[in-house]
């Protein structure tokens, strides 16, 4: 507001505007908010990183530190591993695949400028992002009645297949923490959002989303004496809902075939892997003659196996370095928005569904890696 007032005072006010803009953008939140919101639709998503970079310039300018942390180094190592996977025989360079990797690194490096209270703002921001993605998806669903077609029509870059709704499920522990912290309208809004998400999980038939929500929330609440029974109930309810969707075990059998194929690809190309985005080019050689799911599947439905198959040991070591760095930076910190339940839910989704082809995976991974920084300085009672 001060910036706008300064701008209205004429040329002399321009400097005032610049100062106010710089102050407002001094942290990573404006850049993060603009980027995430722009990524909610296919038409605005291409500009998301450009806008993020512009809004991040003040924060970058103010950075007077000299040392790179282990978290920074691990993010750079992941980007390096992505590039090195080009030595693999099945690598197909595509500029599109490089964009989220670059954005991931930029986001992790920006997070060091977090200010006190940013974690709560990011949690609230994620709620807005979830709403902006859910509404078009549900509207499209009422029109088509088909989960896949609905997501295609909704044109939300984060939501490619129904199971991509699971990113929202991963954030449930944070939203529940926010709802418990705030009273009144905020709490009601959060509860309504979670209810809407649950409806979407069921309508879109995403068992993994239900399971991730239950595991993350259950883990968070089980650690809390007041929420222990609720946590156990959430886990039980989710288990019942998962079976009630009645998809059987065919999808698990199909995943087993994909996992075996991914492992075989890794064994065949252990050092640099097959190359980024190379799975689809080589996996059919290792599939049964008549697979359970005959559709061409571009990702192996297991992020660890995908990294091994496509990035080889080099990529896996880079990601392991990031995990170690994240664990080290989170160790001993106490924040209101615990990292562990969200990380566990994300790990569950990563093991059976997530892919490096998904934009949300990179953005969410950057948030997880940078979370201790974002949550830094907040007072709380929960362990990370």
């Amino acid at each position, binding site marked *: 507001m001060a910036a706008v007032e300064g701008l209205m005072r004429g040329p002399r006010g321009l400097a005032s505007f610049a100062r106010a803009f710089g102050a407002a953008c001094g942290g990573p939140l404006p850049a993060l908010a603009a980027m995430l919101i722009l990524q909610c639709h296919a038409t605005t998503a291409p500009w998301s990183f450009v806008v993020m970079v512009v809004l991040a310039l003040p924060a970058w300018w103010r*950075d*007077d530190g000299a040392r790179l942390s282990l978290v920074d180094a691990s993010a750079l190592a992941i980007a390096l591993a992505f590039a090195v996977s080009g030595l693999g025989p099945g690598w197909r360079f*595509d500029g599109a695949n490089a964009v989220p990797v670059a954005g991931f690194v930029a986001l992790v490096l920006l997070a060091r400028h977090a200010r006190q209270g940013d974690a709560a703002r990011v949690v609230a921001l994620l709620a807005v992002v979830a709403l902006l993605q859910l509404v078009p998806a549900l509207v499209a669903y009422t029109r088509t009645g088909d989960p896949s077609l609905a997501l295609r029509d909704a044109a939300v*870059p984060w939501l490619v297949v129904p199971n991509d709704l699971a990113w929202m499920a991963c954030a449930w522990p944070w939203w529940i923490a926010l709802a418990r912290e705030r009273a009144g309208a905020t709490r009601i809004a959060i509860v309504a959002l979670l209810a809407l998400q649950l409806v979407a999980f069921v309508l879109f038939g995403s068992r993994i989303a239900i399971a991730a929500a239950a595991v993350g929330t259950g883990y968070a609440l089980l650690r809390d004496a007041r929420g222990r029974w609720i946590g156990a109930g959430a886990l039980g309810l989710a288990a019942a809902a998962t079976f009630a969707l009645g998809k059987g075990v065919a999808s698990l059998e199909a995943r087993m075939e994909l996992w075996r194929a991914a492992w075989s690809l890794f064994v065949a190309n252990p050092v640099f892997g097959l190359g980024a985005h190379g799975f689809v080019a080589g996996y059919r050689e290792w599939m049964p003659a008549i697979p359970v799911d005959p559709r061409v599947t571009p990702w192996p439905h297991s992020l660890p196996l995908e990294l091994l198959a496509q990035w080889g040991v080099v990529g896996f070591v880079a990601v392991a370095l990031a995990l170690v760095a994240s664990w080290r930076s989170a160790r001993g910190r106490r924040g209101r928005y615990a990292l562990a339940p969200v990380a566990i839910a994300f790990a569950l989704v990563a093991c059976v569904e997530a892919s490096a082809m998904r934009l949300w995976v990179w953005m969410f991974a950057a948030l997880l890696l940078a979370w201790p920084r974002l949550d830094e300085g907040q007072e709380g009672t929960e362990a990370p």
Partner: protein
Amino acid sequence: MNLRRTTTATALLAAALASVAAPGWSDTLRLQGYYDYVDLQLGLQLPTVVVPGEPTPFGLFAENAGPGTADYPVLLLSGGNNMQIEGVSGCTSLELPQRTCALAPLVANWAHVLRFRFHLEPFSRGIVVFGAALTSEAVDTNPGNELQVVSIPIVAEAETRVAFVDVVPETLVDGRLAWTVRVDNDGPSAAISPFVYNASWAYGGLVDVQCTSNGTASCPDQMNYLGPGSGWNIRLVAPPLSVDNPEIQVGYGVQPQEASNAFDNDGVWLVYRDAFFRDGFE
């Protein structure tokens, strides 16, 4: 140099440049993530029957229901060894005998209409099993395979003709009379094991039948098939006219007898008489 600022600046610049250099990155990422990036559909416009030996035009349409673009769609055609296929329109290249037809890129919700002709060997019978497969060979954009296999009944058509080469008989040294009959097949199909019949008779004895077209005298009983554009010369030799043989009838016919194929019955007939006066009769 401040390493952290430099690194951050590099990362920010890389993110901005990468997203600008690949302006459609968001859509590309999203589309690459679908199970089936392209949804190819293949439609066939085939005749209800195929006539062997006759060029049969047929059409195909290759459609992409999207959402992505099939960059390198390829059509594979299969029809057995007795079938030859030639492209008329639609293929950017047609490799034979692999029968691989490369198509122009197919954007979403677009279709290519292709025209072909196939030739079946004239002696083909039964059914022809025709297969067509449409695929996008751009594996990184997910091939959307589509396969169609259709069996088409074969109905042969053979236009046979039988005619006298010379109506006036040739008189041999021993006085016997000889006629030459030409049996032709104008096609387009071969007449397989055609039924031939000789209705020639003479009062004075048997009318000998010889096949002279290929140097063997026994071919009429051993005809395997009569190919289109080919024929036989049949030589019919009858005893000379005499008091006991005042009239000779020369008749020869051919009728391809094949199940499910209907042919006309073609034949020629001639009754040969001559005035003959027995000595002292008047």
